[in-house]
């Protein structure tokens, strides 16, 4: 059990800090969150800056244009960028964390050359067309149909919860190519250019009032067969490579941010004279234990990924990520409930940063696998309980 970082890891941290101190003041001001084109420009500029400094695709394999960083280096990167207040991955999320790694792992050399460099250079935005109105937690039940016609697939159906769809160049799309096969075996992964005829994007308004994601309607959209990654009907496996790509680092920046907010809550409560309330103080004290432990659990999962990689394994933490996500998503909601207590009637001011975050935190136990699905995964894959409902 060793929590000390190696000399090389500390050197990496030092170099990164120095670069951040120099690069961040040069960034333009954060755009209005409602201005999607401005957000795209801002996020891509940040990705370009990372690229020029050699930090793009830090955790990607070197032969995919990445830096082949260890999981610990990636942890340090995410920790330091969050601490420094650097922009969030934003519009680059799907490209860097889902579509890109999938193409790196499963694409042909030509596909890698075509799609990966523009992601790393901050030139193209990807979005994700996985969920459908009738295929949420049961993703494999998706029904968007693709029929082969010469050198193209003709795709019809609809996708939902697609972030950044309005400003994306590409969509990693899951389609059904064999309706007769068992549901996991008739799915194919396609790269869809978002400017293709027949693609319609309709923004969805969240309960926070913002348009964070969209519905994507596909009406006889022609996608070249050359845009298929992996074999036809092998898309489920191809996708699972993506979904399990993270190596224990998925929420590093967010845990760092939560610990900062918790400190701000304590400071605010003290300034407002609320610090004498033992119930509030203890509530915040308990959350401090919670987030400190979540940070340690992150370090544990990253250490596991690192050992797996050193031993020639995949570096994928497997179901351990579900353990983390279950507790983290709940803790984050608790944090903003505590924030509402600190704010009192001020918690009704929707323009307050914590109030906006309280609203968006309501999605954490739903997005990327609901807590109920995560508990099934933990129970069946880690604890070995029988499948069944």
């Amino acid at each position, binding site marked *: 059990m060793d929590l000390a*970082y190696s000399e090389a*890891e500390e050197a990496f941290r030092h170099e990164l800090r120095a670069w951040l101190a120099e690069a961040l003041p040069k960034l333009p001001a954060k755009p209005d969150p409602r201005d999607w084109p401005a957000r795209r420009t801002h996020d891509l500029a940040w990705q370009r800056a990372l690229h020029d400094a050699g930090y793009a695709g830090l955790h990607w394999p070197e032969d995919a244009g990445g830096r082949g960083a260890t999981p610990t280096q990636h942890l340090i990167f995410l920790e330091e960028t969050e601490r420094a207040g650097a922009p969030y991955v934003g519009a680059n999320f799907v490209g860097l964390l889902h579509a890109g790694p999938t193409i790196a792992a499963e694409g042909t050399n030509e596909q890698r050359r075509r799609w990966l460099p523009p992601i790393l250079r901050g030139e193209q935005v990807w979005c994700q067309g996985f969920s459908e109105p009738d295929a949420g937690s049961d993703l494999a039940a998706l029904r968007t149909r693709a029929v082969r016609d010469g050198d193209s697939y003709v795709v019809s159906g609809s996708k939902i919860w697609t972030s950044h769809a309005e400003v994306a160049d590409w969509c990693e799309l899951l389609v059904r190519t064999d309706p007769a096969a068992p549901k996991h075996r008739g799915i194919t992964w396609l790269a869809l250019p978002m400017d293709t005829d027949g693609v319609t994007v309709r923004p969805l308004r969240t309960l926070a009032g913002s348009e964070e994601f969209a519905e994507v309607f596909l009406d006889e959209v022609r996608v070249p067969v050359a845009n298929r990654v992996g074999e036809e009907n092998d898309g489920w496996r191809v996708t699972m490579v993506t979904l399990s790509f993270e190596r224990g680092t998925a929420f590093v920046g967010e845990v760092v941010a939560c610990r900062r907010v918790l400190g701000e809550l304590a400071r605010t409560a003290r300034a407002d004279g609320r610090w004498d309330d*033992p119930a509030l103080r203890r509530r*915040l004290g308990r959350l401090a234990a919670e987030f400190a432990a979540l940070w340690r659990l992150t370090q544990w999962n990253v*250490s596991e990924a690192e050992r797996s990689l050193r031993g020639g394994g995949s570096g994928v933490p497997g179901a351990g990520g579900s353990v983390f996500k279950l507790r983290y998503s709940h803790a984050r909601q608790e944090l903003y409930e505590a924030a509402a207590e600190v704010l009192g009637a001020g918690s009704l001011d929707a323009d307050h940063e914590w109030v906006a975050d309280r609203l968006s935190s309501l999605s954490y136990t739903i997005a990327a696998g609901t807590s109920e699905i995560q508990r099934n995964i933990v*129970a069946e894959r880690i604890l070995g*309980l*029988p499948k069944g409902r």
Partner: protein
Amino acid sequence: MDFLLTEDQLALRTGFQALLEGRFGRDRLRAAVEGPPLDRGLWRELGEAGFFALRLAEADGGVGLGLQEAVLLFEVAGGALLPGPLVATHLAVTYGAVPGADGALEGGSAEAPPMGPVVTALEPSGLIEHLESADAVLVGSEGGAPVAAVRPAELPSAPLRSVDPLTPLCRLRSGAEGREAPGLPQGPVRREAALLTAALQLGSAARTVSTAVRYAREREQFGRPIGAFQAIKHLCARMLVRAELARAAVYAAAVTEAPHDIAGAKLLADEAAVNNARDCLQVHGGMGFTWEADVHLHLKRAWVRKEQWQSAHEAEDLLADGLIDELSP
């Protein structure tokens, strides 16, 4: 950074697990429930296995290992529900506050620590466990040392009927018979006591997960194992999440030894042990409510340990103060 256990640490844990399974299996556990909870023979064997002298230098007759290794052994002991004042005896040996070979309390021989002393402690709650079996009681030192030992008879105390059949308890009667009550162990002794108690809780929390899961796989209702029902699955998943979060906190505190980390570890391990035992009981249905099932032993011991060395309120207050301190320039 490599937070995982080293090979030596894994081997140590496995070895101690095997020793306890052989020497303190279920029959012995149940015998301890019905009979005297503390078995001096087993206690001596624990001493010979290095459980108490684990952190003494080899030159002083110890094993020469550290707090991390102690935490791993205590985790195993907690899972097995091993009775006795494990924490106090371990700390008494570590800090040289044990009765000597001649039975004298002062100057316990450092070169050859006796293998079989039973040392309990005066705890912040005012309770003392296993007092009747103890050779000595750890208290606060009046001198420079963080801890000293007194004879059990020197403590004015009254027994109470302990909720846990494996942990006899006495309450300190302060100021009785004109004598001043001794102070509490302080400094590192108190922090390490909280951490080792958290490790015991972690072991129990992990054990109740595996017990619940085993039962959920075996027990059938409506024609299938109850573990196939989501209601049961989700209880079990929540249990694992609690245990794993507590594990991360306890192991990290063993590395850093920082007061805030120890407070957080105790808080989360207490929560995991108590709530996991509760959920384990629920998974067992009616059987969980019986004396015969072991579930209640985990729950009751978790309740006892929760009150030992650092209460939830103390831990939360310490952690809350830390939030303010972090912000001070």
